[in-house]
């Protein structure tokens, strides 16, 4: 296992596999950061239930754009140009969850609650990682993601507490996003995931991170009065 800590000035000396993996993971991260606003801004900015919610949609998008900027900076400094993801159509996003568009408030709420939580999980993979410029941008990004998760949770809870119809909408949205969330961790037993861990760029295997997520989210859904979807139903990756 590689245990050194790398600064930008050391990057040129690194193994080609390390350079390739770091560039790849930064590109995907940048795509996911900008992919969020591309999913919800068009329909949700005008359609959020209150003016305050409209402004919070805009603030969330601003924070995700800033996350993109920070990741793009780390990538750009090592010569990896991720700017193409700024103009990439949604259907070409690296991660399937970001292909399409969010058209209902319940989907927007559950997206924050469940998918921004995946964002937090992915960023936590880089805690104490071997590439220090990446490690340094994490605290502010994770703090903002926690805000998105909390907002999504609160809006989902409001919907549940609004009555049977609201609860049914929330459950449908959870059923839709939960399996997509689990697939976002990638394949169990992935060789690439092992290489990320070997180079100190990630901490957990895909299956371990996914299981941690299941263990965290299940009790929250139950406490909210929702049914935890079958974690194996409708999955693309196991």
């Amino acid at each position, binding site marked *: 296992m590689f245990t050194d800590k790398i600064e930008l000035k050391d990057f040129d000396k690194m193994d080609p596999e390390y350079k390739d993996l770091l560039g790849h993971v930064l590109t995907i991260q940048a795509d996911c950061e900008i992919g969020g606003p591309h999913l919800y801004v068009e329909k949700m*900015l005008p359609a959020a239930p209150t003016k305050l919610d409209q*402004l919070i949609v*805009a603030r969330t998008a601003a924070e995700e754009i800033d996350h993109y900027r920070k990741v*793009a900076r780390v990538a750009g*400094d090592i010569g*990896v140009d991720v*700017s193409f993801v700024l103009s990439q159509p949604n259907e070409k996003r690296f991660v399937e969850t970001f292909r399409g568009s969010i058209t209902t408030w319940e989907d927007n709420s559950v997206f924050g609650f469940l998918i921004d939580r995946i964002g937090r999980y992915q960023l936590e993979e880089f805690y104490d990682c071997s590439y220090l410029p990446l490690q340094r941008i994490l605290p502010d990004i994770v703090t903002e993601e926690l805000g998105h998760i909390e907002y999504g949770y609160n809006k989902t809870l409001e919907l549940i507490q609004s009555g049977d119809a609201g609860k049914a909408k929330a459950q449908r949205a959870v059923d839709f996003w939960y399996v997509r969330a689990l697939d976002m961790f990638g394949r169990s037993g992935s060789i690439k995931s092992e290489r990320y861990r070997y180079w100190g760029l990630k901490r957990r295997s895909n299956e371990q991170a996914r299981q941690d997520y299941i263990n965290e989210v299940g009790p929250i859904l139950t406490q909210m009065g929702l049914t935890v979807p079958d974690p194996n139903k409708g999955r693309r990756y196991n």
Partner: protein
Amino acid sequence: MPQPVANLEQIDEHLMEVVRALHGAVKQGVSHKDEPQIMDKAITDCKEILDEIMAGKVKEWLN
């Protein structure tokens, strides 16, 4: 040292400006919660800024 990407600084600065403008508009709206006209103006401003970013015409940002 690796060679940084061309236009990295310009895109970074442009996006920093965009984020700053969005936060400014949101703050203006949120701090006038009881004044619908100010909130509407803030939402319109956010929409204009975000529409430009969502269009993704990066070359135009740099001109």
